[in-house]
């Protein structure tokens, strides 16, 4: 399995480059992954999305799609694209330490 080095730790990643082990994740790692991904500053709005995604994942075993994010997180699609440009669901999932949402299959 491939690995990446984040904050000096070597972490296993899946074929999409997302963290392979949920337990490797913490908030510092999230900040670092976001920065490497071109989001230098995680605001409270970012965190609201990331926490919501982790909550859904814990309950259901998969990360929510962007359509569900819009419907349930209270943040509209346009804002989601501003927070996580180019692909809010897949980028937020990655920063939240989750596998790619299944809707992307």
């Amino acid at each position, binding site marked *: 399995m491939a690995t990446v080095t984040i904050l000096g730790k070597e972490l296993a990643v899946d074929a999409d480059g997302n963290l392979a082990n949920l337990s490797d994740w913490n908030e510092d790692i999230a900040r670092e992954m976001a920065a490497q991904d071109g989001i230098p500053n995680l605001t409270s709005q970012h965190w609201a999305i990331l926490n919501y995604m982790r909550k859904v994942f814990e309950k259901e075993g998969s990360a929510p*799609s962007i*359509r*569900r994010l819009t419907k349930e997180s209270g943040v509209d*699609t346009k804002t989601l694209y*501003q927070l996580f440009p*180019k692909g*809010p669901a897949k980028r937020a999932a990655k920063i939240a330490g989750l596998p790619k949402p299944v*809707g992307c299959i």
Partner: protein
Amino acid sequence: MKHLLILGGGTAGTMMANKLAPVLNAREWQVTIVDNTEEHYYQPGFLFVPFGGYRLQDIVKPRRQYLPAGVKLVVSSIDHIEADKNKVVLGDQSILPYDYLIIATGADIHPEQTEGLVDDEWGKTKFDFYTPRGAELLAQFLKGWQGGKLVVNPIEMPIKCPVAPLEFLFLADAYFTERGIRDKVELNLVTPLSGAFTKPKASQILGDLLGRKRINVTPDFGLARVDSKEKKLVGWDDTEVGYDLLVSVPTNMGDPCIGRSGLGDELNYVATDKQTLLAKGLENVFVIGDATNLPSSKAGSVVHFQSEILFENFLEHIDKRPMPARFDGHTNCFIESGFGKGLLIDFNYETEPLPGEFPLPGVGPFSLLQESSMNHYGKLMFRWVYWNVLLRGLELPIGSAMSMAGKRV
């Protein structure tokens, strides 16, 4: 008398009727199937209609003709399911009770979900090829088209047959080349994915193929609205892509009757157990095919593999024995790549599409993730296989569980 009710008489519903009716004791069981139309379309054929490869009459058959004797076909719309009362309410409010239910209502396109997509220009400069009507209108349009910028845009994942947008572009490349106007046509894929396909290895190989065929890719494009006057796609981040001809793959959703039943997710797909195919939280309802929320592709081949699992599980479950079969997400898709060639991908929940030979290592006859004319014949043969093997519920020489034999990691 016990009632097995099957909702939807498409690929999955027809297969299950053909598998189960012969083995369920006719004195104990009545099998009923509900669908709102008499015509059964071979949907993979829609891809070839715009290019004159098939006419609609080549890919449609009477639904009844594919159902076994003894199975009752009710031609009616389904209004909703009342799962707590074991009954289904039809469009005219009549009621069908059931002991066991199989939901096989599939998925369909919903262009109305996107701002500006359905207006006066829909069917004139903007088309779909996922419906008989859309494919036919596009065929008429393409015949007279003298060139310009063609944009293929799947709006939102998941879609039925996720490789269909790529196949459309490969076939367009061949079609315009044969018409001698390829230089006048700019071919573009504008996709919400980060590349050509959903899985990394296939994405890279298919991406290279797109490049070689001079097909441009705009990845990570989230469509907010279509501006028909200015002929452009506008993204959520305000980026714009102009077009002369838009071939849209609108948002795919499960049937609205699923939403009305309170059984749907945000896209009206039914929460389904990944392995047993039982509807989550319901003991006497199974789900199969495009109607499920499973992370496997929405494709006829997947329905076939699922049908074997569902068949085994159903027969044990009705006798209150544990369900033995486990669906592994097996998917097998021919990808038409134009000029008499094709590719093949074979994968499951865990293993992404890999190069190699299929089904026999070193022998094939099909090659995985590599162009060959054999794969193209496989695709053409699929229409015959669909009507004569798959729908009849017969077995193929390919197991429902994916095999690693012949695959190169």
